[in-house]
């Protein structure tokens, strides 16, 4: 391994080496936490700028370009503005919950980064049930959104919170189900094992990432759709639909608390993007064998950046869905497809033992057909079938 590949690990070891042996584990843990917080905190600032710039470019305008060269210092100006703004708490609000909600949203999200492998030997902790940990710490966000919406004592806030919770619960199912095939094929819940399982090469040096298999490709697409909805981003941004319900559960928040909500949402997006890279795009492995000399953390960062760009692109492209379309899309389309994807992964596993000439393309096409045909039929079947007009049972 080249020195550049392990440079962060080496720096961490050297820095921890200055301390007495008894506190060294503590020091290296603190260093790992500080590293993650510094990198992804900066990432948050840069992504807000990049998002506005890219959106502007796609909508044929400039985007922020007043602060600093090319508007590069815009995040700094935003931060100063957010920090110095007056923090308004509504008179009738539930003060304690109103204060706690942004914290409950933001703090657990940081924990999710602990298990992600950012490079060779670069994950903060190696948990045996790493992926379970990832989803477990994310489960507090629904409660936080509810706390924010309910404590504001505002109808828009409550409607936004209810929308957000309905959406998060619905899309959590396909999100987790689309991860299961990866766990089945890797035979482990530990993220480092999953990355290692994608670390070999085939066909003259092409990497064996999960995304190059039929179930992996379908899984990645399902995962990204569900992840967009989980992090309340367009086209699934109904909870904050500003043309409908002002800003949803954020309506009564201002100043630093508002910024904390945004921090939490972007960090959630980063965490889930990092998970997508780890599970489907080979983690920190290079795409070709002859590119192995490039440091592993660079590959993670490159794939991460590409996926973030994809999310911004989708936001610039697609209009917002209606709530019933959103829930139908999840329950009638994504959930059945992700269940079928489990069967495709099983078929991929069993056909792995086949031995005859030109087996690889045949196996690939067979498994791809197993997921593509249900996709086609399900899409056709649902296209004409509009749900009947809703009957309100409790609202009258």
């Amino acid at each position, binding site marked *: 391994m080249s020195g550049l590949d392990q440079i962060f690990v080496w720096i961490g070891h050297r820095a921890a080496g200055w301390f007495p042996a008894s506190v060294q584990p503590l020091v290296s843990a603190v260093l790992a936490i500080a590293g993650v917080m510094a990198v992804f905190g900066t990432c948050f600032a840069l992504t807000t700028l990049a998002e506005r710039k890219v959106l502007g470019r796609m909508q044929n305008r400039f985007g922020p370009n007043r602060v600093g060269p090319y508007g590069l210092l815009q995040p700094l100006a935003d931060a100063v503005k957010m920090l110095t703004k007056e923090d308004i708490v509504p008179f009738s609000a539930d003060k304690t*919950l109103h204060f706690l909600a942004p914290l409950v949203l933001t703090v657990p999200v940081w924990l999710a980064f602990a298990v992600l492998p950012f490079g060779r030997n670069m994950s903060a902790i190696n*948990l*045996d*049930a790493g992926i*379970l*940990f990832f*989803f*477990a*710490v*994310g*489960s*507090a966000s*629904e*409660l936080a959104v*509810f*706390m924010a919406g*309910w404590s504001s004592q505002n109808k828009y806030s409550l409607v936004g919170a*209810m929308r957000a*919770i309905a959406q998060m*619960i619905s899309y*959590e199912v396909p999100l987790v189900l689309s991860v299961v095939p990866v766990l089945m094929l890797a035979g*482990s*819940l530990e993220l480092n094992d999953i990355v290692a399982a994608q670390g070999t090469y085939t066909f003259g040096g092409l990497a064996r990432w999960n995304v190059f298999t039929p179930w992996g490709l379908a899984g990645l697409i399902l995962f990204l759709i569900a992840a967009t909805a989980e992090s309340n981003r367009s086209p699934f941004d109904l909870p904050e639909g500003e043309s409908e319900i002002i800003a949803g559960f954020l309506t009564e928040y201002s100043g630093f608390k508002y910024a904390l909500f945004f921090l939490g949402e972007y960090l959630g997006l980063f965490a889930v993007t990092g998970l997508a890279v780890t599970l489907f795009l080979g983690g920190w492995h290079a795409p070709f064998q002859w590119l192995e000399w490039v440091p592993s953390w660079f590959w993670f960062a490159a794939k991460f950046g590409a996926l973030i760009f994809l999310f911004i692109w989708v936001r610039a492209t697609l209009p917002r869905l209606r709530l019933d379309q959103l829930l139908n899309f999840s329950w009638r389309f994504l959930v059945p497809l992700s269940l079928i994807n489990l069967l495709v992964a099983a078929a991929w596993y069993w056909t792995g033992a086949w031995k005859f000439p030109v087996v690889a393309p045949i196996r690939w096409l067979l498994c791809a057909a197993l997921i593509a045909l249900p996709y086609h039929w399900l899409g056709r079947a649902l296209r004409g079938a509009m749900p009947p007009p809703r*009957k309100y*049972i*409790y609202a*009258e």
Partner: protein
Amino acid sequence: MLNEIAFLLCAALTLAGAVAAMMLRNLVHCALCAAGAFAGLAAIYLQLDAEFVGFAQLLIYVGAIAILIVFTVLLTRGAEIQPGAASSASSWWKGVPVGALVLACLIWSIMASPSLVRLPSPNVHAPVKQIGEQLMNQFVMPLETIGLLLTAALLGAVVIGLREPRTSEPNS
């Protein structure tokens, strides 16, 4: 020493959450305190090195059951208790023997169980894998039965949710 402090903190969080969930006057606060108690319990599991159980506790209780309770409270519109209402029902004393009985049962079964004998914990490699193997081999029947039961419950919930209100038709 550090372990004991951590345990005391987790236990205090769990107990405080549970007591607050019973004592507070606002049902939404109660539900959120119950979620806090669930999280404290998960922390105790984690402290006992039961990673899988701890994460499952967080995922299921904080992520699903707390949300379910909150939704129930909101949909039944009972979030606020009227200020004039009595702090407890007049038949509260009936609960005392029941509570004592349950406590006695718990104490008896805990004292009779072998879990009080402290053994050095076996150093298991990949405990999640072992849990999976046990579930798929030794405990496959209970697992399948629970799955069937949950599916039946799910279908029942859907059937209840689908039922059209016949009486409210003329009004609209």
